């Protein structure tokens, strides 16, 4: 089956998922991001790489944070950024997803950054561009349903590499609501591709998808067992609407059992880092003492996120 993310030369055509992306491409993106971190420290935070290109932020699901980081990344590469909040516009008037895409193509878009509540929506757009032979337009998945959030996964990899260098010696734990998390799926795909020997996931059975072990991870339900001697703890966000209902009795109980507190973190390696994709629910998945503590690298993640998104955009723009 052809991989819709790669072009005929095996180069990145779209960034849709980290699952199925070869290790050399993942590494190339991280390497490309490296010099971009310095751009932010310059007096003029701009490079001319995407000058004259039009990037459409196509958000079918509300987001401020992710959309903003993509916007900053695109602007630092001198692209023109057009933000479309489709959640409140044409699709509510009955326009189909692909009609929206066709219209924006007619406006000479060069790149789409897509967020959608349904898993696979960016694939549908990429497939549509392929069948209509618009091979010069690229799609970046900015989060689709429960499926993937590849730039988040990449910035997490960048962060881990920054602090821990070698992926092949690490034990990493992902904690929380894996069932609904596109972030977790992208993290698992990237970590296993990059050669992390042990990826663990920790959480209640209600928040673990079926056959998760087939993705190459070890499943734990107990925090102290799962966190023992890990090098990296990656917390997931728990959505408010999932806290009280058939999946979980309450946010308080979740915090008591799976919330990351200094006591639970103590069983990890002393130099373990703590990550979170944001926005955090303090007192639900993470204790403030950890979130603000010396092991947290949550704010550097945000900074690296811009460099990683610049890297992805510049690579797509040149392929």
């Amino acid at each position: 089956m052809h991989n819709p993310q790669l072009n005929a030369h095996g180069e990145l055509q779209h960034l849709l998922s980290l699952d199925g992306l070869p290790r050399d491409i993942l590494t190339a993106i991280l390497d490309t991001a490296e010099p971009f971190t310095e751009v932010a420290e310059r007096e003029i935070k701009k490079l001319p790489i995407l000058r004259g290109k039009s990037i459409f932020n196509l958000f079918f699901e509300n987001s401020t944070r992710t959309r903003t980081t993509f916007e900053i990344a695109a602007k630092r590469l001198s692209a023109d950024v057009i933000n479309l909040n489709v959640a409140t516009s044409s699709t509510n008037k009955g326009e189909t997803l692909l009609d929206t895409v066709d219209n924006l193509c007619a406006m000479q878009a060069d790149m789409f950054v897509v967020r959608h509540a349904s898993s696979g929506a960016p694939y549908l757009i990429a497939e549509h561009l392929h069948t209509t032979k618009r091979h010069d337009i690229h799609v970046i998945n900015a989060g689709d349903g429960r499926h993937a959030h590849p730039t988040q996964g990449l910035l997490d990899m960048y962060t881990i590499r920054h602090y821990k260098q070698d992926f092949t010696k690490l034990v990493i734990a992902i904690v929380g609501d894996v069932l609904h998390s596109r972030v977790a799926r992208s993290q698992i795909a990237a970590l296993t591709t990059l050669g992390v020997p042990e990826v663990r996931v920790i959480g209640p059975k209600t928040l673990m998808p079926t056959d998760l072990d087939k993705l190459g991870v070890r499943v734990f339900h107990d925090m102290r067992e799962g966190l023992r001697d890990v090098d990296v703890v990656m917390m997931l966000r728990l959505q408010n609407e999932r806290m009280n209902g058939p999946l979980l009795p309450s946010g308080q109980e979740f915090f008591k059992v799976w919330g990351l507190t200094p006591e639970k973190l103590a069983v990890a390696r002393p130099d373990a880092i703590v990550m979170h994709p944001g926005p955090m629910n303090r007192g639900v998945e993470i204790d403030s003492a950890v979130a603000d503590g010396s092991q947290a690298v949550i704010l550097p993640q945000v900074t690296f996120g811009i460099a990683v998104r610049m890297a992805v955009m510049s690579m797509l723009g040149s392929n």
Partner: protein
Amino acid sequence: MKIHIANGRLIDPAHEIDQQRDLFIASGKIVGIGSAPDGFTATRRIDASGKIVCPGLVDLAARLREPGFEYLATLESEMEAAMAGGVTSLAIPPDTDPPLDEPGLVEMLCYRAKKLNRAHVYPVGALTLRLEGKRLSEMAELVDAGCVAFSQANTPIVDTQVLFCALQYAATFGYRVWLQPIAPRFGHEGVAHDGEVATRLGLPGIPTAAETIALFTYIELARLTGAKLHITRLSSAEGLALVRAAKAEGLDITCDVSINHLHLSEMDIGYFNAHCRLNPPLRSLRDRDALQAALANGDIDALCSNHSPIDDDAKQVPFSEAEPGATGIELLLPLALKWGQGHKLSLLETLRRVTINPARIIGSKAGQLSLGARADICIFDAEGETTVTRERLRSQGKNTPFLGLNLPGKVCYTVVEGKVMYAEP
């Protein structure tokens, strides 16, 4: 018209016949097998040398989309598709709009179909009014109007008490109730088999237990009520095992599988291929293999197309938003042949699953070649090929996971009540 079908290899699973015999048709009926009746003069002679002559196929689930969904398909378009596929008898699920829950609707459907003079239709009436699972439909009236059985299509009854009563009432008359095993409140928000592929793709899952839980209920209620059941669209090895055990126990239960579930698995979803959004979902390779073996050994009685034409707009959306279903009536014969070849079955055994077996489930005399029977015939080239393309599909729906494939077998002629309704172009 009097037709002489000459030199063909006649295969009639109902009578265990597989040999070269000529067939003679007059006044819409079969009047001679092997030798012409006295004084027979053909007005048309069809040379079937090198071809298979068999009963017209019987499909247990063909949605013709009338009434209510004429924008998706019409009787005209789907009857053309049936003719091109050699299918001459169709059971129609009740999930039209409005559902087939009152005699007038059923009579109208039968009347419209008869006027078109193509495949015979066998409506399956709604078990409950509007398929809502609350009030029973007028089953006896519906049977008078032409219904052959009762079903809830894809809408399971939530209230077990109502299901129990519906089965009791149907059993009063000896009507067979066709039920798709779907637990009404378990995995109902899912869109794909709850397994590795759904986990990887982040698609909400439908556990196999959604099928088995429903089957436990159905089988227990069949025991209690004595109702005759037909389990439609089995999808899992576990579900199959329950039906097998119920049959072994002596309950009057039959079952079918669709062409999609016989050949495909969750792996075919690939990168969110919406053509593989089906109800029930495509399950694992292990399940698919179990279904294939069960159709071969007779645990599964019949193969059906579960024909569901859907327009492009409802499929060119993200996977979980896509409408479930696939067009398939034209692929019933080729996919039966493909399965039969894979299991090294004789053509006779292969054709049994799409002729006499489904006809018996409907309770119809269709699906066989006997003297005096309605002359519904399919003539096909077993060595030929059917290429599945949007352009060649006659169904208004172009939604099938088999697009682009070359499948074995090519229909040459379809004869309905002694009239040639399709001839290979």
